[in-house]
């Protein structure tokens, strides 16, 4: 797959699926760490404007 040689000017969602290392434990571990950081950020961002327990509503998104 060498369609990535130019700048990112084209959405290539379907071709990229081939490049995603689904079974690579390192990649998954790295992804999980990143996702944890993202989730932390999003929860804090949500709670910022008003100090309400809105975090609870996010739970359905965290289902595994």
């Amino acid at each position, binding site marked *: 797959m060498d369609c990535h040689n130019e700048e990112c000017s084209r959405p290539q969602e379907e071709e990229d699926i081939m490049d995603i290392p689904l079974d690579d434990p390192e990649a998954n571990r790295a992804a*999980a760490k990143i996702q944890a950081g*993202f989730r932390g950020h999003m929860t804090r961002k949500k709670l910022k404007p008003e100090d309400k327990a809105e975090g609870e509503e996010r739970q359905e*998104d965290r289902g595994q």
Partner: protein
Amino acid sequence: MAPKKDPKAPAKKAEPAPAPAPAPEPAAAPAAPKIDLSAVKLEFTPDQVEDYREAFGLFDRVGDNKVAYNQIADIMRALGQNPTNKEVNKILGNPTAEDMANKRVEFEGFLPMLQTVINNPNKAGYEDYVEGLRVFDKEGNGTVMGAELRIVLSTLGEKMSETEIDSLMAGQEDENGCVNYEAFVKHIMSV
């Protein structure tokens, strides 16, 4: 980043029912290595404890001064931590889905859980996030394709939902659909 299995307590598979004070109900047969929360030394200042107590109280929707297992991760996030769901599950003793919804823990039980997360030596910092994203930087130019990042987030690791991803990526892609990941990580870490 060497993964660590047992941050504090040794794995005691033969232990019948440790009955630690914080947990509402000890599991019958701990299969995976459990964390002994009663052995966790709390290192919080009184001010911190009060902050935590306040945050904890905000999540108590029932009014019993407890929160459900499935809220624990979010409270920790609210308090500045970034635990993986796997980490939280381990701390909670690998609860079932039913446990997650029904079991509740009081504030005193929550503190050692939080301390455990804080003590985790594998916590990710700026460099870890950037390095992680750099893996997907095909041209090595500091950007990743937003579309590819979305796919990674939804198919690898602890998969994120589309809603979560949309929320996360809002305003992050440039006109070419690319994300400058160093800027992205700085943004993430600013809250």
